[in-house]
């Protein structure tokens, strides 16, 4: 039983990581119907920048609690990521807004490759490790272990989702975003500057990516210029599973994907009598994804177009 609880916790934490990145995907998709393939790379930049600042602070021996140092790193990473997100949208996506649908997908891939290689030039090819400054407190729940960092990730993903939903539903900007998502032209007639709204969406999404980047590197203790690719891919799958364009869907999809992967890795061996093992973890996850989409072709929560944010 404690093993099962542990697997669920593992899955929820992993899922929160996916959810954090998936939120950024889904925001951009919601407004532009564009898969921002470079979002994973923005997450990577966030991790790299914050780690550089954190390492520098630790290096000069700043006498602050670990959490404060990490927050300082995050504060440095957020504006950088916002700048990167803004630039990407301006240079690579905006000129293509009326182009064939797949054209921005290719520039997104181009942007991914460029960001990866710029990161490689700046930070080198090595893995960068996260200094051990965060509290390592462990808690027991029903015989399973959970750490402070894991709890922080869980909480962050839910809080951010709630905050964003509130913003999209209640604020002026949120209303403008919803209007632009439905029809940029009509939103324009109503006095909404679609370009500004789209820029702000990217900036917001990139800030989220910075948060995700810091949490991921703090949790796993490392960052690398290539880390964004797989993370972005998993997050994208999570967003689709939940219904892309839907904020709650991104979190639901992320958590579900995490739990599925975790249970898959943990129990697939036992279920198949040892024929398939944890090497089929991703097969299991994708199989469920396909099954869900067969019965709900637009994801779990993504049915009504009007709900997109």
């Amino acid at each position, binding site marked *: 039983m404690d093993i099962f609880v542990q697997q669920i916790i593992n899955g929820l934490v992993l899922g929160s990581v996916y959810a954090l990145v998936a939120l950024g995907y889904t925001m951009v998709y919601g407004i532009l119907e564009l898969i921002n393939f470079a979002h994973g790379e923005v997450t990577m930049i966030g991790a790299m920048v914050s780690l550089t600042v954190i390492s520098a602070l630790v290096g000069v021996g700043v006498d602050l609690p670990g959490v404060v140092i990490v927050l300082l790193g995050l504060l440095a990473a957020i504006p950088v990521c916002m700048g990167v997100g803004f630039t990407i949208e301006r240079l690579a996506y905006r000129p293509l807004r009326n*182009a064939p649908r797949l054209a921005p997908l290719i*520039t997104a*891939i181009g*942007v991914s*490759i460029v960001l990866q*290689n710029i990161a490689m030039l700046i930070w080198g090819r090595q893995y960068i490790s996260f200094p051990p400054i965060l509290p390592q407190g462990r808690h027991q729940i029903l015989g399973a272990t959970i750490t402070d960092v894991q709890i922080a990730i869980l909480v962050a993903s839910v809080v951010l989702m709630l905050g964003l939903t509130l913003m999209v539903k209640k604020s002026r900007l949120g209303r403008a975003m919803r209007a632009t998502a439905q029809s940029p032209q009509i939103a324009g007639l109503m006095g909404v500057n679609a370009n500004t709204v789209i820029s702000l969406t990217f900036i917001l999404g990139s800030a989220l990516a910075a948060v995700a980047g810091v949490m991921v590197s703090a949790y796993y203790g490392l960052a690398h210029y290539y880390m964004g690719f797989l993370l972005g891919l998993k997050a994208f*799958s999570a967003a689709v599973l939940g219904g892309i364009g839907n904020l709650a869907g991104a979190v639901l999809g992320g958590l579900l994907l995490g739990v599925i992967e975790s249970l898959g890795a943990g129990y697939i061996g036992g279920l198949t009598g040892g024929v398939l093992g944890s090497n089929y973890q991703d*097969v299991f996850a994708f199989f469920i994804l*396909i099954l869900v989409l067969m019965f709900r072709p637009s994801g779990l929560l993504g049915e009504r177009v009007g709900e997109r944010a």
Partner: protein
Amino acid sequence: MNQKSRHAWLVFVALGIGLALLPFLVDAGLGRSWVRILDLALLYVMLALGLNIVVGYAGLLDLGYIAFYAVGAYCYALLASPMFGLHLPFWVLLPLGALVAGLFGVLLGTPTLRLRGDYLAIVTLGFGEIIRIFLNNLNAPINITNGPQGVNQIDPISIAGLSLGKTQVLFGVTFSSPHLYYYLFLILTLVVIFVSMRLQDSRIGRAWAAIREDEVAAEAMGINVRNIKLLAFAMGASFGGLAGGLFAGFQGFISPESFNLMESIMILCMIVLGGMGNIPGVILGAVLLTVLPEALRYIGDLQRAWLGHVVIDPSDLRMLLFGFALILMMLFRPAGLLPSRQRKRELSAAGDIAEQEQASVYDARH
């Protein structure tokens, strides 16, 4: 009219001679490695044309296309290597690879019939990964694919007792192995191009265009959407399977790492960059994206020629420039380098009915 057709013939003949001499020119001018790059470029042309059927003609975004390439390659490798001690001839293996890949195409197509756009993309992506993971892990409990170690010592393609894996002297001319493969690949590429062209102009091609434009309207017009979609998957997949078989014979060693997601994405880039739905565009895209990263290797030499020494490590810059090239090409030619005429408009129309109406199905090719 007569004048025009004679002109066309001249161009054809010149093109034919050019293509026949190309490997020798390239070998003399740039070195034999470039003949190998040409061989790979031809394989990618076949792959891109196959994916073009699915994405370009039928409008189904497929991110797992490399799986069919993998299926074709493993089909060839397992039946012509010491793995099971089987050594079937290529004229059995290539059609078999195409057929099996086609079946896998139907297998993928069936559960995804209802899905559209990005949802289809993620499912096909998942399918591609599933195939790769199986290939990577089917070495236990029964060893079928030899797992991550890959299949080695695959028989080179051999036609009428003539092995393409060795240097051969024919009609007094010495042909190295990459040269020989070039001619085989060229012939098969021409076949694939021909089939692609005929398909586009056929009833089936028009049906694909119809479902691409508007699935509901197509169904109302009496098109069997299910079958026609499955046919697109199967046709595209069989081209991929054919190319996979050729790759296995050419390379002599395959392992699952050659069939990763990035490859699928690259092939998609080729067709979008070249001009989706337009055969010359697709060919250009495939050749360009195969050649460009290799050409960018010379930036080290360029620096040496211009500046006297290498300032920036070429390996640092190569992929960076490639990324920029992708972005710039799309910014300047968003419909592809050689777009098909009516395509520019209709592709942008994904959810936009007003625009869809502007491009009617029947002005597709006339």
